[in-house]
């Protein structure tokens, strides 16, 4: 029998697609370390030590004896925001797709490792309407059909106002069509985060968003168990 062509993992397929969609509207693909310092993972993002907001992300820590400063497996790709702003300053327009880790019990919708997509856009005059428009553009492209987005109040320490984002695919015969689906958290970058990165919050404003790429796979392909992404099982991968 002929040797069939190989199959690309759905997560990297989606990351490639996400990158192309965002590159068209000027977003740069940024990256950062998976072993991240507490400083960038939490402190620079307005998540103080011993604050209840740290409970939102259960964290894997490296041993003190192995590291020169407190270090974690990054719980989100947001520390790249802080690193990028420190290095390049504002304005800034980046996406950060990457692997993140949470010390949580796993089930069909939770894995201790997963991929997150972070977005950050800082410039003069950026507001919540830009966030909404950008997300509607992205989802419409990604799900191949006109998609609308709505916001609900939420809280994440690194943004304010913070919003929960729901999306609804308006067209097509996909199972997703017509339903509001909670997809991500987002908001306007908190002035403390801007200040910590040396950005003048009086001059610049911006939005940030973060969503799980594994979850996008659940929506786009009907993956039922996100743990399959990391199983190394070609019965899974070869369906894509």
């Amino acid at each position, binding site marked *: 029998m002929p040797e069939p062509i190989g199959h690309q993992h759905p997560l990297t397929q989606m990351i490639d697609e996400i990158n192309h969609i965002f590159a068209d509207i000027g977003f740069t693909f940024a990256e950062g370390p998976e072993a991240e310092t507490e400083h960038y993972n939490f402190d620079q993002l307005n998540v103080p030590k011993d*604050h209840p907001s740290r409970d939102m992300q259960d964290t894997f820590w490296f041993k003190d004896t192995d590291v*020169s400063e407190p270090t974690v497996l990054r719980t989100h790709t947001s520390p790249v925001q802080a690193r990028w702003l420190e290095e390049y300053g504002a304005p800034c327009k980046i996406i950060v797709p990457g692997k993140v880790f949470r010390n949580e019990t796993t089930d069909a919708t939770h894995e201790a490792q997963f991929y997150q997509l972070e977005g950050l856009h800082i410039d003069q005059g950026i507001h919540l309407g830009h966030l909404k*428009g950008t997300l509607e553009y992205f989802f419409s492209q990604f799900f191949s059909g006109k998609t609308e987005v709505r916001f609900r*109040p939420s809280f994440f320490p690194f943004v304010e106002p913070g919003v929960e984002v729901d999306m609804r695919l308006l067209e097509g015969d996909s199972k997703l069509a017509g339903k509001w689906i909670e997809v991500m958290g987002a908001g306007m970058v908190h002035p403390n985060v801007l200040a910590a990165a040396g950005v003048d919050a009086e001059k610049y404003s911006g939005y940030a968003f973060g969503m799980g790429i594994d979850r996008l796979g659940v929506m786009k392909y009907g993956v*039922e168990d996100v743990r399959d992404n990391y199983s190394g*099982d070609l019965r899974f991968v*070869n*369906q894509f």
Partner: protein
Amino acid sequence: MNICYDWLKDYLHADLPDTGEVERLLTEHAFEIDGVAMVGDHAVIDVDVLPNRSSDCLCHRGIARELATILGTNLQYDPLAHTPSLTPTDQIKVTISDPAACPRFTASLVTGIEVKESPGWLQDRLAALGQRSINNVVDATNYVMFAIGQPLHAYDADLFPQVDGQWQFGVRYGTAGEIVEILPEGGGTEPRQITCEGTELLIVDQSSNTPIGLAGVKGGQFAAVHAGTTNIIIEAAHFHPTITRKTARRLGIVIDASKRFENECSRELPPYGQFEIIKLIKDIAGGEYVGTIDEYVERKANPEVEVRVRTTNALLGLNLSQAEITQMIARTGSTVVEREPGLLICTGPWERTDLLIEVDFIEEVGRLHGLSNIVSVVPEKGAQPAVNVRQYYSEQIRHTLLALGFSEVITSSFQKKDQIQLHNALASDKSYVRSTLAKNMHNVLDLNFTHTDLLGIRSVQAFEIGTVFQKIEGGVGEHLALAIGVRQKGNGYTPKDDAPLQVAIDAVQAALGVDVLFTIDKGVAEIDLSQVIAALPVPEAYDNMVTRTAATYAQVSAYPSVARDIALWVSNSPGEDLKHDVSHLLRAAASDLCVRIDLFDEFTKDGKTSYAFRLVFQSKEKTLTDTEVSAIMDRVNATAEDQGWEVR
């Protein structure tokens, strides 16, 4: 937090909308609703109070106030509206060692009470929240906490030593090694002994310096209220959120009281708690209120915050007038004063400890005005951004290897044993982070070889691009790695695997235009990709996106698959259409249990063509037996023979 719908009526009276509307208003303007359930006769709404509002909204009054804010009304009855008048007493003394750790401590004396069962209405309300009724005094402390958010604790005054005519409370840090006995948790009966590290804040009987509880976290057996108690002292205090949290986390105690202290309720709240509980105790336990000590050693008032109309609109993308913004901020109970046109001075109501900077107020305007009113700005197509080399070259490698029949896997970053162990692991077999990809790749080859028939492949060919971690001078280093694996035999590596592996390696080198030195071991090759990419040129732009067919995933069956072959002579001349027709017919005959059919051999001899197909059977419900599969194959053979094809 569970909110009893009927309880909200105490504060909102007829202004309270029906449960559906309460759900909608809270969802759109404040908090997510996790569910609504009927508990007895009461609708109970599970409100997911956000962390920044856990200081004022983990109680019924808080949620009622939030609804009033959203509706643009005031509470019909507000227990926080007027500063309570409490009678001072010198029968209780409080000594606070660190005002920052305990800025306020109040204690009231009530004499001549009767401990008994709580009245039905009180038991009923606590039951709606899932709280067990204990006795009228303990229930009253819980009730007031769920009503206005102030945790309280009651002591039997007769079991609390009086020295010089005074009950003497102290608040100090524990000393390292000091033992504190606290009440049993979670239905247990034995008190728990806590050994202090020195960071815990303790409440002590100052006269003997005996610890009587972990401040804000858990009380002790000391002077516990019992059936015969007649005189009580009720404590309502404010403890530092971080100190409370650290102790609670360290000991694994998260209770309703500690949750509230952790979230920094207002320092103004304790006297309101006293006022409410004294009223309630008199009502349901009788007795006489003697007086209250209020040791308020460190005040903290809400700040005056400058809120600019221009900034508010600029962040929200709205065009609200100053009057509209003023009106919305005022609805939260904040005071708003115009300093100059476009500049408002705002101060949050005392119970809102979260309104500290301009953007806090802007957020209030946004959610009260309604986030649904935000208008989208369509992004503009712009110049292509700088290329991420890691992504660019990773994609090059992927496409190179895919074309050679290699599939991509992503495996776990956790290992049972490796170089770097995590401080807190999820499980004992996941306590290290990986230093190479090779180990996982060997597992991938082992795992998948058993599925080659089902996958329709002869050998397993896979690759992974992922981060690995290594110990380096002064810390943890990481790099992106590429691993490629080939397996042609089920029982493990054979030297024959090296040839296709070398083909893959050569192709990757050709695609990148550099020679790279892979580490090769038993059919798996690995390289530090970060290092390779660092030496490559930065491309100007990404390649066009590969057009992909839309895939819909189907859950993999947990049951094993069975493969059977069929070889047959077909008299017709060979061709793609014929192949397709034969395959199609056989598959149809093979039923839905045939999950794939692959042509694995064909040749032509004497004008006749021979095809050999492999059929793979698998059920989603059970393990297929040999008899079942044989019966299907009999049908397949019969179908072939009906067509005049000779089964070999």
